[in-house]
């Protein structure tokens, strides 16, 4: 396993060295470290470095000292992120559970600060594309491994081994299956409009295989949330594909053909989506959500990180014993304590109160709305082809909606992955705004002609 350490360290060293020529590469390196957490993939020496902090310093310092700030601007939504960061600091100081609150604060502040900072660095089209590329390949590393293991057998909720041993962070079954589905539209956009890897049959083949691996993630991890996300993505794609009936037909046939290949455990778990009486995971979820609503009646400002530790539920669980004639159902009293929110919306509400939930919803709502407006602005006229801008707005919106749907069932409000999508939307939005302004200033400037050539 030391071999993996060496390879990962060599990779990080190589990319860091490339950053000496172009500091923006360090931003990409931080995104990679933030998503893949290579310290956890390796076993020995790589864990000795505070890798995440080192890369953060490199990315931020590189931008501050070496990079041009031309065209960087601080937007309203970045202000929202900073406000959210301030609110989190405030609620952490008065958190009910000080120890675990500060533990969560430890990674949340980095996630929020980087989210506010990232759009400042993504000033050009190529930089936006590069971030998309690194996001897709980073998540792709996990999905290719997980997808292949699913095909060759093995898997199960919390048991599919994904590069690392533990079932935490982005490697948690539900979270990785949400991220896997969310990157599909972005990967497809890269295959169509990429300039680092230009459209070519090899690129298309890679993206097709990657998307397939991503679709297998909810299967391999038995995460029901992932299946819901995949269905939502399929429905959204219906909105934009050219031949809707053909698409729906193919999707239906593929689904029917796939069912016999799904493992039994998967079908059993999926059938509980609609019948959740006997399922502890689903019924406690609803109990926790009810508890949170009661909790904020007394604590409208929230209870700080991990406030859910205060809850405890006692309820009746049906338990089946015996089989055939001797089969009997008894109800046992079960007491659960400290059940997590299992929903980002309730996570925000319980921990940061109504204000926190409001800021968070506003942040995501504006992004979704803006992508819709951009999508409409760049909608191709009849006979014209979709441009890269319209395509990117569509892809980001689809990824974002998948994230927000997944967030209904999993507490991922502060995951770096979600903020990466938000950060890309902010950067893309202000990039388009800047271009529109420059265009209004007259075509005499040099960039105008070069941009006209670019946005074919």
């Amino acid at each position, binding site marked *: 396993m030391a071999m*993996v350490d060496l*390879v*990962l360290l060599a*990779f990080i060293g*190589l*990319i860091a060295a*490339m950053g000496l*020529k*172009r500091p*923006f*590469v360090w931003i*990409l390196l931080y995104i*990679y470290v933030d998503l893949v957490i290579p310290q956890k*993939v390796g076993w020995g020496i790589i864990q000795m470095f505070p890798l995440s902090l080192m890369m953060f310093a490199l990315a931020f310092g590189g931008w501050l000292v070496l*990079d*041009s700030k*031309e065209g960087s601007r601080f937007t309203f939504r970045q202000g929202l992120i900073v406000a959210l960061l301030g609110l989190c600091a405030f609620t952490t100081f008065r958190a009910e559970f000080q120890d675990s609150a500060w533990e969560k604060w430890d990674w949340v502040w980095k996630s929020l600060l980087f989210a506010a900072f990232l759009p400042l660095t993504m*000033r*050009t*089209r*190529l*930089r936006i594309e*590069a971030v998309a*590329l*690194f996001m897709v*390949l*980073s998540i*792709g*590393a*996990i999905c*290719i*491994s997980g997808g*292949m*293991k699913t095909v*060759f057998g093995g898997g199960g909720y919390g048991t599919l081994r994904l*590069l690392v041993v533990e079932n935490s962070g982005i490697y948690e079954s539900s979270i990785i299956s949400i991220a896997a589905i969310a990157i599909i539209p972005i990967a497809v956009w890269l295959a169509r409009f*990429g*300039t*680092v*890897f*230009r*459209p*070519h049959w*090899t*690129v298309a083949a*890679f993206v097709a295989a990657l998307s397939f691996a991503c679709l297998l993630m909810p299967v391999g991890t038995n995460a029901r949330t992932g299946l819901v996300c995949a269905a939502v993505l399929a429905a959204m794609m219906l909105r934009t594909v050219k031949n809707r009936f053909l698409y729906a037909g193919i999707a239906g046939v593929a689904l029917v053909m796939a069912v016999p290949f799904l493992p039994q455990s998967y079908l059993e778990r999926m059938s509980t989506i609609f019948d959740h009486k006997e399922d502890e995971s689903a019924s406690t979820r609803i109990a926790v959500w009810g508890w949170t609503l009661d909790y904020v009646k007394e604590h409208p400002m929230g209870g700080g990180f991990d406030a859910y530790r205060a809850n405890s539920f006692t309820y009746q669980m049906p338990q089946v014993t015996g089989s055939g004639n001797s089969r009997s159902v008894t109800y046992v009293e079960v007491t659960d304590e400290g059940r997590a929110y299992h929903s980002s919306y309730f996570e925000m509400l319980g921990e940061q109160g109504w204000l926190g939930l409001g800021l968070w919803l506003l942040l995501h709502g504006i992004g979704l709305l803006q992508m819709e407006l951009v999508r409409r602005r760049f909608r191709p006229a009849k006979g014209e082809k979709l441009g890269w801008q319209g395509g990117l707005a569509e892809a980001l919106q689809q990824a974002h909606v998948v994230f927000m749907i997944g967030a209904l069932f999993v507490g991922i409000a502060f995951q770096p992955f979600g903020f990466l999508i938000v950060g890309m939307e902010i950067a893309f939005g202000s990039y388009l705004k800047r271009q529109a302004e420059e265009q209004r200033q007259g075509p005499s400037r*040099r*960039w105008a002609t*070069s*941009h006209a*050539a*670019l946005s074919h």
Partner: protein
Amino acid sequence: MIDYFAIALTHGLMALAAWRLLARPDLDDDSLASEEKAKPKPWLAARDDNPGDGHG
């Protein structure tokens, strides 16, 4: 084994992507977006070894 394959493939592609970014002036300034792209390159039309062509 599968892990090695997944890591090698994706990390190789990321390293290649970063390498290609170094040679792109439009990474730092949009106005330098390869004007060459707009110009046709008849001398390359018959060949398929254009380095920017994406044989990933």
